[in-house]
């Protein structure tokens, strides 16, 4: 497989604070990589580094010449009250190469094709706020796809969504991957998403481990990544991460009790 991008000993800082330290990572054509780690571990920065958005203060980023990258931001960062229709949002991807404000017939045809491909046909004239959670995420995947990328980067594509929407979004991403697209996504969902991906990167400013989920979802790796003990069980050959929360001090057991109060005719008792 030909390598699309390679990070060699890459270090980034925001101010004095190091965000990524000595990160080595490569992504090849057609790969599907998940990046997991706690909040503030540098996941988004890693995606921006791969996208070419940041210049490292140390190390280097080697890209395939002319590599087209599609970037899907966290939907939580989107201003849903911005006056923009689905089609207008998707056409933003065609920002270069045409100087007049209106889109070309080719741009429109291509945008319609991508919308149809992602199950959004007929929704081009709708405001982005009027869509369901899964459709909203697919709009931004469609915008990234209009750049004809070889590599698709998604920043927590299932953050804050329900199980059905998560399934819907991941189904679309898997389909695009099966069509030959290389995918890198970040996620906090170890059991629902990370455990099902072919390759995982555990990140906490530095790369803690890289490999298949069965190789990296292990208690010692997760403790180094998250700084907290996590138990890993095996279910049908898949690793399942179990979190244990400390019980509140002084409470050993909570017993649920119920009392039936008979109602006398003409007399109603109201619960306190």
């Amino acid at each position, binding site marked *: 497989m030909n390598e699309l991008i390679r990070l060699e000993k890459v270090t980034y800082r925001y101010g004095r604070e190091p965000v990524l330290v000595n990160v080595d990572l490569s992504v090849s054509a057609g790969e599907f990589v998940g990046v997991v780690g706690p909040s503030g571990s540098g996941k988004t920065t890693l995606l921006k580094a791969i996208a070419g958005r940041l210049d490292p203060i140390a190390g280097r980023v080697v890209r395939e010449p002319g590599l087209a990258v599609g970037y899907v931001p966290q939907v939580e960062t989107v201003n849903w009250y911005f006056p923009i229709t689905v089609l*207008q949002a998707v056409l933003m*991807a065609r920002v*270069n190469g*045409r100087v007049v*404000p209106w889109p070309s017939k080719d741009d429109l045809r291509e945008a319609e094709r991508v919308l149809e491909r992602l199950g959004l046909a007929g929704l081009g004239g709708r405001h982005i706020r009027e869509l369901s959670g899964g459709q909203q995420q697919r709009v931004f995947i469609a915008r990234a796809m209009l750049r004809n990328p070889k590599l698709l980067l998604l920043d927590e594509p299932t953050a804050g969504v329900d199980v059905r929407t998560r399934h819907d979004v991941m189904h679309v991403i898997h389909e695009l991957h099966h069509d030959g697209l290389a995918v890198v996504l970040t996620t906090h969902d170890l059991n629902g998403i990370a455990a099902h991906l072919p390759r995982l990167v555990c990140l906490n400013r530095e790369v803690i481990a890289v490999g298949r989920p069965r190789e990296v979802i292990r208690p010692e790796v997760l403790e180094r990544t998250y700084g907290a003990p996590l138990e890993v069980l095996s279910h049908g050959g898949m690793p399942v991460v179990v979190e244990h929360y400390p019980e509140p001090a002084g409470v050993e057991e909570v017993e649920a009790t119920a009392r039936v109060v008979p109602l006398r005719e003409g007399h109603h008792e109201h619960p306190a």
Partner: protein
Amino acid sequence: MSTLLEPFDYGFFRHAILVATLAGALCGLIGIYVVLRGMSYIGHGLSHAIFGGAVASYVLGVNVILGAGVWAFVSALMINKVSRRRTIGADAAIGTITTASFAVGLILVSTYRSFVVNFDALLFGNVLGVSQADVWLVAGVGVFAATVVFFGYRQLLFSTFDPEVAEVSGVNTGRADMLLAITLAAILASTMSVLGVTLIAAVLVIPPVTARLLTDSFSRMLWISVGVGTGSGFVGVYLSYYLDWASGPAVVVTSAAVFAVAYLVSSFRRRLPATVVDAHVG
């Protein structure tokens, strides 16, 4: 009919109404980006900052409009720089820099009392002071602003909606911000004599906000905003002639009235069943 056209017999009125109409259109155009970037307060701040620039330019013997424009542009860059420090928010940066600049202007006015120029006109707008040169200046700025928005439409839209992804997609967001700051400074400096620095922010904000109430489409919002700005500029100055109001407040009150009507219309549309709205508006 001749009574209605009477004010057009006067050269000063023709100049004033032309400049106010152009100014309304320009503010409606650039105001879209100002409002959608959550920078409404910057228009207010910069309009005050240019007062300091205008007075300082007069004292130094520099062209007042040019000096005010450069001052506004430098203020915009300083606000950008200061607000990047996370400990200081953009609102605090705007409040500090622009009010300080306004204060410098007031100190200069109180120190050099022997001004030939009446700075009240700069503060509140005055149709009597509009010359043929002002008309050409605003027209020139209008051509510049229209060119920037026309050729930078895609970049400005993308960097306004989603600056992070815009940059990944090859948009130079720094250059887009700079271009927007230059255009905004030029519009504020060239229109301050008619609209007044204390009121120009309203002309910058009310048309796009009115347009936003009426549409969910960016391109339509742009046209509606320019239309509301143009109409308010024309009607406002026209009313100011008959009602003997200062031109700036007249334009602002007109656009505020249009906003009130749009607000009522949008509230009424919200209460209608979706199918009725689609049938009549879609």
